[in-house]
Structure formats: C-alpha cells, structure tokens
C-alpha cells in the first residue's frame, strides 16, 4: 500500500470518526433531554454549531499561543485517533497502526490537554488557568487507574500493539479483556468517566463554577476547531477502549454498537449525579480505581490471568 493510499484512507477514517463522534454527541444530548423530561435538540445540532462558530466574522486572538491551543488540541485528537486501528482487519480503518502504538496513543490522549493549557493560559481570563489547573490535576488523577489498567492489559497480552491486543481478544466474547481481566476493565471504565468529563467529573468546564473553564476565551473558528476535536477525540477514546477491553470490532456496525454502549456508561452515570468538588474528584481516582488498577496488575502478573 502506497503512503498516499494510506493517507487517503486515514482522511476518510478521520472524517467518519468525526462525524460519528459528533452524531454520538447529538444522540447523547437527546438522551439527557429525555431524562430532563424534554425533547432536546436535533441529533445534527453539533454540526450546525460547528458551522455557526466557524462562520463568525471576527475571532479575537490573544497571541500566538492562544492560536496554538486549539491546534494542539486537535493535534492531540488526531494523534490519538490516527494510531488506533479502528476496525480489526479493515485496511480502510486501520490508520497508522504499528508496533508500540499503544504508548503513542497514551501519550496523545493527554497531549491535547497540555496544548490546550498553553493556549488557554494566554487567554488572560482568570477562569482559564483555574480550569486548566483543574483539568491537568484531574487528568493526572484519572491517568493513574487508566495507566494501571493499560499496563495490566499490556502485560496480559504481552504487547504494546493495539492490533495484536485486539487480535488476542478475537474468538468469542469470553476472550475479551472484560472477562479475562475484569479488574483492569473496572479501573479503566471508572477512569473513562473522568476522561469524558461527564458528571460527577465535569469539573473542568463546570459552568456554575468557572464558566466553561479553559475555552472561556475561545471564540469563532478557535472554538470550532475545539468542537471538531471533541467529536474526533470522543470517537478515538471510545475506539481505544473498545479495542483494549471489549474485543475490538470486525465491522463498522460492531464498532458503533460497542462504542455506543461504552459511551452510554458514562452518560448513564453522568445524568444521575452532580459534580464533585475538584479535590473530591482527585481523591476519588487515587483511591479505589487506582487500587483496583494495582490489583489488576497483581492479578495478571502473579495469579496468571487468562493468557
């Protein structure tokens, strides 16, 4: 396969993922609305929002770093997504999967937030640094159980290649990490709550506290980049989780069903709770989920796991 084909495939893949991620966002809004006892916006609303923010005639910039913030954020999303093989065995959706891509993905998951920190910091609004501080702190907190879970998975499958991890889970749902290493999945699923920033871990954008936090000064096309990234990044995270813990997907329908349910988990929790105070949130991740993560590693290394 020539590099150009690969690039073309990647572009298609990224587009599909973005559209999928945004649609998922629209569906989730609808679901929340049902819980609230109302109808909610149309499913395609996120697309309209992106066009609308993009179409602003003026966009105030607070300097070069401010401009880089959203770009780095999008780079984070792209980076995360481009190294995850989305559909097992599909050339179109394999992206730039390679040996050790798990490490790269782990890096990119957090890269965007750091980039955002740089950009938003230059916004000059005092709520941005507060939000960034919260965001970075929370990220570090949920990174602990998440990394532990990933380490457990890596140890379990003895690989840092996502494709091979997915391959190892093929052959019936009993081979999924969910059943072979349930502790790691529990730790990871708790950390995805923080990663998705739904309640009770929605402290970064908390409108009632620090009105939407880091992107408070982001406007116009800056915001539209962030919104696009939100769709892409959501899809990337879900695909990653699907690949690592839920046996990956062999076709697009399986991918959609699985990721949808993974996402629904955080929606299910998010609708029912208010948000934590920041330090409550940090403590939460560092307590039980981290402990479960450690347990999962112990379970895998010493008690042998399934493989």
């Amino acid at each position, binding site marked *: 396969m020539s590099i150009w084909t690969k690039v073309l495939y990647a572009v298609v893949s990224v587009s599909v993922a973005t559209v999928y991620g945004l649609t998922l966002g629209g569906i989730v809004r609808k679901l929340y*609305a049902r819980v609230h*006892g109302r109808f909610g916006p149309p499913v395609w609303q996120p697309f309209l929002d992106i066009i609308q923010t993009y179409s602003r005639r003026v966009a105030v910039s607070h300097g070069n770093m401010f401009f880089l913030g959203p770009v780095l954020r999008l780079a984070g999303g792209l980076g995360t997504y481009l190294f995850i093989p989305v559909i097992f065995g599909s050339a179109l959706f394999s992206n730039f999967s390679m040996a050790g891509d798990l490490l790269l993905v782990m890096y990119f998951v957090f890269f965007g937030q750091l980039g955002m920190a740089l950009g938003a910091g230059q916004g000059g609004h005092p709520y941005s640094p507060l939000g960034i501080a919260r965001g970075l702190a929370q990220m570090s907190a949920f990174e602990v159980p998440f990394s532990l879970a990933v380490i457990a998975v890596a140890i379990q499958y003895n690989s840092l290649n996502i494709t091979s991890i997915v391959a190892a889970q093929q052959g019936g749902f009993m081979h999924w990490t969910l059943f072979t290493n349930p502790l790691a999945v529990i730790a990871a699923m708790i950390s995805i709550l923080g990663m998705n920033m739904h309640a009770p871990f929605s402290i970064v954008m908390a409108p009632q506290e620090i009105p939407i936090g880091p992107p408070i000064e982001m406007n116009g096309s800056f915001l539209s980049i962030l919104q696009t990234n939100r769709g892409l990044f959501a899809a990337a995270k879900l695909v990653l989780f699907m690949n690592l813990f839920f046996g990956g997907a062999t076709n697009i329908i399986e991918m959609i069903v699985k990721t949808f349910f993974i996402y629904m988990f955080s929606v299910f929790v998010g609708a*029912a709770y208010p948000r934590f105070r920041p330090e409550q949130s940090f403590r939460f991740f560092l307590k039980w989920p981290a402990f479960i993560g450690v347990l999962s590693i112990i379970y895998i290394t010493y008690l042998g796991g399934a493989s």
Partner: protein
Amino acid sequence: MKLKDVLSPLRVWERAAKKPMTIKDPINERPGAANYRGFHKNDFSKCIGCGTCEEICQNDAIDLVPVEGQETVEGDSGLRPMIDYGRCCWCALCVDVCPTGALTMSNDYTWIADNPEDYRFVPGADKTKWQESEKGYTRSPDIQIIDYDRVDMQELKPEERDKSFIEIVKGYNKEQAMKEAERCLECGLCIATCPAHMDIPGYIAAIRDDDLDNALRILYETNPMPEICGRICTHKCETACALHNNGDPLAIRWLKRYIVDQVPADKYSEILGTDHLEDEVLNRKVAIIGAGPAGLSAAYYLAIMGYKTKVYEALPGPGGMARYGIPEYRLPYDQIDKDIDYIRSLGVEIQFNTRVGTDITLEELHSSYDAVFAGTGLHLGRSTRVPGSDNKRVYFATDLLREVTLGNEIDVAKNIVVIGGGNVAMDITRTLARLQNQKYGKVQILTTCLETEDIMPADVEEIVEAREEKAVIDPGWGPKEIEIRDGEVYGLHVVKCLSVFDENGRFSPKFDEEQKKFFKADMVVESIGQGMDLSYLSENIKSNLKFTPRGRIEVDDNFQSSLQWLFVGGDIIQGPDVIHGIANGYIAAKGIDTYLNRK
C-alpha cells in the same frame, strides 16, 4: 456514604421513560388563560374618553389622542387612549378603573417588532388581531377601584314633610361631602356639558382639600348664584359624569350646595375680593329688566367689572322664576336672598314693582342707559286648549306657584288633576298636595301626562318623592276634554297616548282613542309649558328686532340682539332652566362690556 445514596440517584432514568413535560407547539397550543392580562382592547361604543385610565397609569403609558370618526359631544370627549407598550406593565389597573368598562384586555400576548416605535397603538382604532378576541381580563364586578356608590343624602321623611314647606334635602355634612368629593375622577367631562362651564373638578378638589374659600372663588367665576344652583339646578353635569355609566353619578349639585352652605354670607366679599369694588366704578350704566337668574347674573358680572347697574323687576321680590316658580320646600327663600343680597351688596340696585312697558318704557331705558339687558323669563302659562280648559277652575301652574310665593290664599279643591310631566308639574303637584294636606288632612291629587313614565321629563327623584307624598301619578295619557257640569269642573277625560314624538323627533303625539280613562276632579291645573311675555317691546322696537322662526328674539353669541344696545338672555332665549339663565347673563355681561368698550 451509604450504598443507597449511591444507587438511588440512578433512578433519574425512570423519568426518561416517561412522557416529556414539553409542550409541542407552544405558540399555538397554549393560549393565555381565560382572564389573562394580555394586550388591550377598547370598545369604542362604550368609551367616553374620560382619561381615567391615563390618570391611574403609574407608568405614564397612556395618552389621550383624537381618533378619526370620534366626535366630541357632551359626555364624550372624542379622545381615545393610546397605549405605549414601551411603558405598559400589564397591571390592568386601567381596566379595573375604567368607569365605562370599555377598556379590557385580550388573552393575546405575542407581539414582536423590529422597530420599537411600533409599540404605540390606539386599541379599538388600530387594527389588531386581538381586538375581536373574546377571552381576556375584565374587571371583576366584586371589586371597585373607584367608588360607584353615592353617599346617601339625608332627607326629610315623607310624613315629616308632606304638610309643610320646610326644605326637604338636608344637605351634606362635612364628612359626607368629603367622602362624596373623593369619588370624583377629575376627568372634566362635566364642564363641557354645564351651560355655565363651571370648573366642577376644581371646586370638588377644593372640597377634598377642605379649602372652601377657594371652592367659593371657583364657583363665582362663572356662577353668582350657587345657592340657587346648588338646590334646583337641572344638573346636566351629572348625566355626563363618567361614573354615571356604571354607577351613581357624582352628586355635583349637592357638593356645590355644601360649599355655599358652609361659607357664611358675611365672608363672601372678603373671600371673593369684592370689598373694595366701589373704587373702580366706571361711568357707564346698564339697565337690566327682570331680577331673575339671568338678569342678576348679568348684573353681578357687570358690577364687578365696574358698571353701574339697575334692575327693574315687576314683582315685589327678587329671584324671578327661582323664587316665584319653585316651591319653598325645594328652594327656601332665605337661600335665594343669600345669593341676591350679596349681589345687591356690590351696588346693584333693584327697583321692585316696576313693570317695563307699563311703568317705564324700554325707550326710556335706552335713552338713560348705555345698554339694556332683558331677562324677562317665561311667566305665562300654556294651555292644552282642550274643551273646558277655559273654565275658571282650570289654572296654570306658574300662576298658582306665584300666588303661593306671594302668600295669597289659594282655593284648593278636594280633588285635583294636574296635566303635565315636567318638573313644574311635579312642583305644583307637591305644592297642592301640601296645601290639601293642610286644609283637609288628606291628599287627593292626580298627575297625568302624555309621556310614559320612562320618558317623563321630570327628575326621577321628584316623581318618587311626589308619590311618597301620596300624590297619584298616572302617566301616558293624553287629555281629551275637561268635563264641566253646572259651570264647575267635573273631571278630565283622557285617551291612551301611544307616542309623543314622530320619527323626526318632532312633537306629534299619537293616541289610541279606544283606551279611555276618566279622572274625577274639582280643579285642573295645566302645566305643559310656559310662554314668554314680550309685551314690553313697543311696536317700534319689535319691527327693528329680528326673530327666529320659532318666535324667539334672535341673538348672536354674546346675546346681543339686532338692536346693538339690547341684550337678551335667560329663559326667553335658552332653557328654561336656571343654569342657562346664569350662563346667558354671564356671557351677556361680557358682551355688554365688549360692546361698550367698542362704542
């Protein structure tokens, strides 16, 4: 942290399965409630443009503007409220206060505009989509923002009054007057209706402030006979009163009476500032014929303008019809004297028992005075001219009333019939009833007229009180014949009257000859109107004067006749009532002033 507390919030998802609370199509699906305070409507058939809505609006949101097609007539200013929705707060006080109930609200509440200037409209005149809407806020009949109930007037009870000529109406005391004065809306619709255009809201406000001196000053601006007017005025103002549409009109007449009753006569000149009038006397003289309301009013204003005036009166007392045509129980003589004495105190001279035309001629007056004002009034009775009406026991009401005032004995019969439905008829009925009561101890008097009871020209309270005094009133009959037996009146034959006026509003009664009735009587009094006596005009003058087709002397706006020096006013021109006379006298005085200055 209990496990229950962790799990029970997840029950939010139960709600997801339930039907959403959302209204699908809110704009069309949810009209305002039946009494929602939405946008304003105005029913022009009821609105009188009194401006009470403007008065109560605490936001200054309402303007009164002229509207095409709305004429200014008595009791309707022709103005209509224009509401500024840049001010309105939809409190509906204007709806609650509206004395006619014309202003209401619809339950429409959506009005979007790009231009803020659009939010100004005249409900009822401008086409709005809610003008026809039936639902919306209206005043609840259970509440009153303004007071629709008149303060009751203290009156003598029928048994206390039916024998004597003591004044029936006791007048308001201070508390009652203040309470009644508080009801005034100060719209001023009454001013246009009053022939004298008195500043009615002004003196009522003065009563509220308990500043009777000021009130008196306002009264005397256009009316020098408030005691008389305060008792017997026809109070057209009260029919124009905005409160009249939904409740009792303000007792404007009684309030006027209250003012003058409270101020003692000896303070008048001090309050009105006429105590140094003699300093400013001009060397001009005006003669006035007739010491009635018109003549005295003219005399008063001429006097305060500095003219020397002399009044020639045929009868032995002043007051004209007010004294000789109105019974004492309605207008006591001392009250007439209070007004007239004050006028006389300004230097107005009255020569009694001098009939112009016989004792002194009009030409003589013309030669010795600069101008002459004639307010001779309507002192002649008018006959029905039915067979038998020339009998000696058939009287005119005006004659009888004059005799009573003069103190002459009247041969009151046991059984009397009065023909006529006006206030004079009621006056004579009640006077004769009293006399009968004094003489025989019982009342046997019957009053009949063409008009049915609902269109009788007499005041309702007069009719009610006459009945209370045991007079029988049987309206709706036309006199056919007065039966004479042996030279004496035996009774009155009447037929049913179907209608009084034709479709053009002209007097043309129609009778149903089949329905007949007979009223037995020893004496018949005719009270169907009065005529004027112009015999004092010599042939020479008469030929130079212009007359209207109906036989009245033609006058211009200043009551100046075609003879420049002769001004004519009062009942012979307008009326008959006292307030027109006063107004005529006032204008004529000004006219004389202008005329003499120009000369």
